[in-house]
């Protein structure tokens, strides 16, 4: 008995740092790819920034869908709330300091997260999906009606953010916006990485895998999900704020069912339940879409559809999920041989 305890101690110690390493690798990857993007595509920073703000929304969906098992086709509500929050702060209240605008976006996103969480969490499965659809339509219609504040379907313009730290201006070449976006993504990734490994992250996974068991441990399933929805709202709101700051305009599409559905597709494409899956899915989908639609703006939809079908057929756990499972199997097989 003593022996086995000892060996496990070793195991535990070995396992914990290994997981941390993966987090460090992720953060390092963001820095490397972020820097590479800056130098390899210096003329394409607007698209890259657009990808980053969408990626934040996809990460937000992953928090509730991948970690808590909530089915949602209405998550753009949180993103749009952040975008309009930051945009309205700048256009109507003269809050043009970018960090403050970002903060406003995060707060508005969290509030929208709380509201849509309260509605969406009242049902499961298909009914939940439909509730989320109703929520996004109500949000969009509300924004359309409040055109004095939001600009309605013409979009909210007149957002003129100041220079970051008074030095770096948001200009045509989009360098500032891009670097700002990468920085926000990095910070978010690190925080989320800590979150999903934390006890609360375990609770969330518990909600997804068996809510009855979790309740029998004394945890309140509803409270875990609501808290996760608020956090998810903060992340999505951050993405929205980044979008508002970098493009200096907010449209009703940021509160649309289309955006919700498209970002859910990106998440599933990459693989749910992993921060990497969310990021990989976004990058692959958006790059693919951009390339294909630039090559053939008239018929790219067919090719994107074929990609989605191919992923279901050949990578059912999503691109990242399937790759991760493959390497895990290989490394296990390798270990098995070592043991024998």
């Amino acid at each position: 008995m003593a022996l086995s305890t000892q060996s496990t101690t070793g195991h535990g110690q070995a396992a914990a740092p290994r997981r941390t390493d993966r987090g460090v690798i992720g953060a390092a990857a963001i820095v490397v790819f972020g820097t590479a993007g800056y130098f390899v595509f210096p003329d394409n920073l607007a698209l890259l920034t657009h990808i980053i703000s969408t990626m934040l929304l996809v990460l937000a969906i992953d928090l509730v869908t991948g970690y808590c098992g909530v089915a949602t086709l209405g998550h753009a509500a949180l993103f749009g709330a952040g975008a309009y929050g930051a945009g309205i702060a700048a256009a109507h209240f003269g809050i043009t300091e970018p960090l403050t605008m970002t903060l406003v976006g995060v707060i508005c996103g969290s509030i929208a997260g709380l509201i849509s969480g309260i509605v969406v969490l009242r049902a499961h499965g298909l009914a939940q999906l439909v509730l989320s659809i109703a929520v996004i339509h109500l949000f969009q219609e509300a924004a359309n009606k409040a055109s004095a504040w939001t600009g309605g379907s013409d979009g909210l313009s007149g957002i003129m953010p100041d220079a970051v730290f008074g030095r770096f201006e948001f200009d045509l070449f989009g360098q500032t916006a891009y670097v700002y976006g990468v920085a926000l993504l990095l910070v978010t990734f690190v925080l989320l990485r800590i979150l999903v490994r934390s006890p609360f992250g375990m609770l969330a996974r518990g909600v997804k895998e068996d809510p009855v068991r979790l309740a029998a441990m004394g945890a309140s399933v509803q409270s875990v999900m609501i808290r996760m929805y608020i956090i998810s709202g903060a992340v999505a709101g951050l993405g929205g704020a980044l979008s508002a700051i970098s493009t200096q305009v907010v449209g009703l599409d940021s509160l649309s069912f289309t955006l919700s559905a498209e970002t859910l597709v990106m998440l599933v494409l990459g693989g749910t339940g992993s921060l990497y899956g969310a990021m990989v899915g976004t990058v692959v989908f958006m790059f693919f879409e951009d390339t294909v639609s630039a090559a053939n703006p008239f018929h790219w939809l067919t090719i994107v559809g074929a990609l989605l079908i191919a992923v279901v057929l050949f990578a059912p756990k999503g691109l990242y999920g399937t790759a991760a499972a493959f390497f895990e199997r290989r490394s296990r097989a390798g270990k098995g041989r070592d043991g024998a």
Partner: protein
Amino acid sequence: MNTLFEVSNLKKNFGALAVTNNVSIGMAAGDRLALIGPNGAGKTTFVNLVTGHIKPDSGRVTLSGEDVTGMRPAARVQRGLIRSFQVTRLFPDMTPEEHVALAILQRDGKAGRMSGHYSAKPAVMKEVRETLSILGLIELSHLKVREIAYGQQRLLEIALAMALKPKVLLLDEPAAGVPQLETTRIERALDQLPKDLAILMIDHDMDLVFRFATRVVVLAAGTVIFDGSPQAVTKDQRVREAYLGSYANAGSAA
């Protein structure tokens, strides 16, 4: 006798069928009670009513003098009313270590923390290892639950219940599906639980029941028909009728 846990006049109908009919059971600290009865007697329904997974039509459940009848299951758990499930309910993609750690953190009110990893907390890790060792699961600490045998999953259910430090523990057929060799582990684990803990166990394994229980309650057709010592139960005429009768009925139906 100082009553720790009391169920009084609990009733539940599913349509016209009374599955739990006026059941009253009280337990004191240190009680080792076995709840037995033929199939369909309403034993699992009784557990579900007590833990709040099903709402009773009438009746009361009190714990340490506090009425918990209207509370959500989680609130009862926080007050020390813990159960295990007849059919294993675990998180298939988590490891046994994570299961037990989560239970410990939840018990200590630290599961809501949004930073830090349990493996960095020596006290938690120590308890995790002790609990898993008692049930012989230590070698499996880092496998996903979906990858371990059903019998071992049953043991993990017990480990979770232990980790939650219950005042009252309801075990719904803890040995069902566990190989004979492993049942001794369960018994050993139960022996190591604090003596002042009240345990109610449902099981069909009469040997296990007799080794474990100091008191036996027999449920038939939703009604308590016997409440007494293990020695007395085998001699009770109504109990014999209930069991034989149910088998006789089952026979004629088939």
